[in-house]
């Protein structure tokens, strides 16, 4: 699927750089020992702005649940309708979510609760983005 390109900004540059290197990183607060996603300039739990760093994840998770998008507001994706959008819970912390189109999984045949593994796909401008495939082993 042809996702929109991504223009990294100051806040998210490390996340996108890591994706281009085939690594999944998530913000981590060393003050309260919590992950947070989406990224922010301060810890949303303890408020610290000085203890945030990027931590590499295993790239494994579980499908929480999903919806099937039939009426997409994003122009570039409309040609691919309908498509799955699943919510992925990371192994390191199930409270941390990522979205996925679940490439390789038929529309509306998403195995809720299944194990998934991160992959990296290029967007319209070449920037890579974390995506997820059903299965527990990297491909």
């Amino acid at each position, binding site marked *: 699927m042809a996702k*929109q390109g991504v223009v990294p900004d100051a806040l998210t540059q490390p996340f996108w750089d890591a994706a281009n290197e085939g690594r999944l990183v998530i913000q981590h607060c060393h003050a309260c020992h919590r992950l947070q996603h989406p990224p922010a300039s301060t810890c949303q739990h303890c408020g610290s702005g000085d203890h945030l760093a990027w931590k590499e994840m295993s790239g494994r998770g579980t499908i929480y649940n999903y*919806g099937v998008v039939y009426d997409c*507001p994003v122009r570039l994706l409309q040609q691919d309708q309908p498509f799955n*959008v699943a919510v992925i819970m990371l192994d390191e912390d199930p409270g941390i979510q990522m*979205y996925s189109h679940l490439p390789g999984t038929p529309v509306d045949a998403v195995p809720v609760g299944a194990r998934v593994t991160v992959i990296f796909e290029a967007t319209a401008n070449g920037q890579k983005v974390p995506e997820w495939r059903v299965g527990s082993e990297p491909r």
Partner: protein
Amino acid sequence: MTPQHPPASIYRTTEGLGLWEHRGKVAAVGVGHSPTARRWDGKPETCVGAWSILALRRAIADAGVSPDQIDGLVLDPVTTTGAYWAAGDPVPLDVVNAFQPTSDPLDGIAKLSAEWIVQNMPELTNIQFVMYGPRCMSHAIVVAAQAVGAGLTHTCLVLKSWHNFEGRYYQGGANAQDAIDGTSAISRLWGTPASYGTAVQFAEYCRKYGKTHDMMAPFISNSRRNGLLFPEGYWAQHRPEPLTTEDYLAARWIAKPANLFDNDIPIMVSAAYLFTTPERARDMRQKPVYILNHASSRAAPRSLTPTLDEVEAETAKTGRKLYEGAGITAADLSFENMYDGFTLFHQFHLEGLGYRGMKFGEALDFYQTDISITGPNPVSPSGGNIGSGRSRFWMHTDCIQQLQGRAGARQITGVKPEIAVSGGPMPLGGNFTVWSATPA
């Protein structure tokens, strides 16, 4: 008169605050609505500013006060339903010049400042207090209730208005671009429509409790039926068509399991209420409806979208806060008018309230029973956004009118209207009000 943004101290966001200090000391008396339209037709007399003035004047007349008695105004300056004035599009000067403009030519067309209202309602000669209530009427009500209770204003207009222009909903701007910024991309690259998050919560709800989407059909039909009895609403005015179970089940998907009728239709409309003190209300034309409490949710999801667990925890907390501050229990509710735009979260609100003893996972079974305005367990007698179009205020108007006994053909008959609750929008992040026919 510089409009203020409400301070955080006015919101009742936590448990343990006890009875609301102004319980029964604020009354809603007057109600005024504009007509509705699907989209603006470009005429001065139907712009969002003109319809706001119309709604305000109707509320004043309904309450039976003279305009110079009004000393407060609470409104939301943002009026978009998701439609924005495209950059570079010429400003319609015939519309601008039909009114007393402010420095922003789109004021009264694609937004609404307090300054624009006051300049174009010269009869409001005594406005001393102006405050914004952002996002929806639910928020403006909380702000106005607290202001009247605290004596910052004694006769206050509360306004919420919506504009809608040509074009598909939310399909312009960044969504039409080939690339987006990195922060937005974290959540927006996957192309989810507005109802997606609720759809996922509903999918998880069905998985957890063994329910199905078609169990929503009685709620949808009931909402449209009630909406068609709301003469101020969009469907009653423009498309007086019932919505059957078959219609609902055949509707196209938007973000499955949310279909077209699980989403509310964006419209243009304005509504205004007149709030005052019980003492002043005695001399007004309509029966006062008292506010027993307001409560707000300021919870945020841990990550991208709220989980079912987060939703259930927050709606239950909202219910406890509402009852604590009002000094009531769930058993005291005559009816409920919680928010429904999107339909698939209305049951979260109901279950959080424990409406009619309901527990988590039971609302869809409850929908299979008599939830009509003639039965003992009315659900959304206003019809909500689904019954009358996206305004986020039909629920409040209906609470006021039901408790005043002037809801017309929509008047509930299976239960005596004494205490009701309304509010929203979302289970996480909303403002809620307890209304009563008596002050205590």
